[in-house]
């Protein structure tokens, strides 16, 4: 479908890709993270010096690397959906495996980052900045794990030939959740690591 066709309202699909239930869940997750983001931004406006000084200790390169990893993972998931839409189950499985691997890589980088901060003596109770930082990043970390679990379940079903060009709602459901996890990190990284 080209851009002109995409903009034609009559050709638009009635519901977003995947199960409708996952979209209720995704919107609820956006709301929860949105509250976190705004609480952080407004708390910072009352504690600018503390937040700016604490932010200097974060590993910005690790944060950026993790953004690149998650974006690439999202791209792999897009390719997995595109593959199953043309009945290429094997390619779909391979793209999903690549996405799961990128999720694992994200977790490894983040664990190293958490370890570095722990060694330097920072924890949830160090100050208000670190309370926000650890709360948001650990919360997001758990979402990456859940996303990997969902993609793994989808991958196993795809490997058994459970999806086809006609029926691939499960792949789209897992993909939508994974993109939500990616979007949250796209906001979280500049907000917490960069903007001052």
């Amino acid at each position, binding site marked *: 479908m080209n851009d002109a066709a995409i903009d034609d309202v009559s050709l638009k699909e009635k519901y977003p890709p995947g199960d409708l239930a996952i979209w209720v869940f995704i919107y609820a997750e956006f709301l929860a993270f949105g509250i976190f983001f*705004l609480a952080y931004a407004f708390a910072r406006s009352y504690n600018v010096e503390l937040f700016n000084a604490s932010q200097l200790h974060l590993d910005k*390169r690790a944060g950026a690397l993790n953004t690149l990893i998650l974006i690439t993972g999202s791209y792999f998931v897009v390719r997995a959906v595109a593959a199953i839409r043309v009945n290429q189950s094997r390619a779909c499985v391979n793209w999903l495996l690549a996405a799961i691997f990128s999720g694992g890589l994200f977790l490894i980088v983040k664990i190293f980052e958490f370890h570095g901060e722990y060694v330097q003596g920072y924890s949830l109770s160090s100050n208000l900045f670190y309370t926000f930082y650890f709360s948001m990043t650990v919360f997001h970390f758990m979402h990456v794990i859940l996303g990997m679990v969902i993609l793994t379940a989808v991958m196993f079903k795809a490997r058994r030939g459970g999806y086809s060009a006609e029926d691939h709602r499960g792949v789209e459901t897992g993909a939508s959740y994974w993109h939500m996890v990616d979007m949250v990190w796209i906001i979280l990284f500049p907000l917490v690591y960069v903007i001052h």
Partner: protein
Amino acid sequence: MTQNTVKTFLYLRPCTWDWLLLMALTLMILMVAETGLGGRYIVGLLIVSMLVKTQIVADYFMGLKRVRLRWRLIVSGYLLVVMSMIGLAYKLSLS
């Protein structure tokens, strides 16, 4: 580079172009982080880049561009409200 190679490069899938744009914007944010730049204009630039990146993911990766407007509006509206409020909070801290 031969003409065919150039053609092959230019005919990358649209999602591959989106991915490359997202990577480039992330590297731009990293450059800002490395230089330690701050202030009103830099904060504005970063917020706009966050908005552009998340909208690309929503429209082209999630596929909301192909869906009826109401579903897309929920995400776009959410992003606009959150980014505007973040901008407001930083404006308060800069004034």
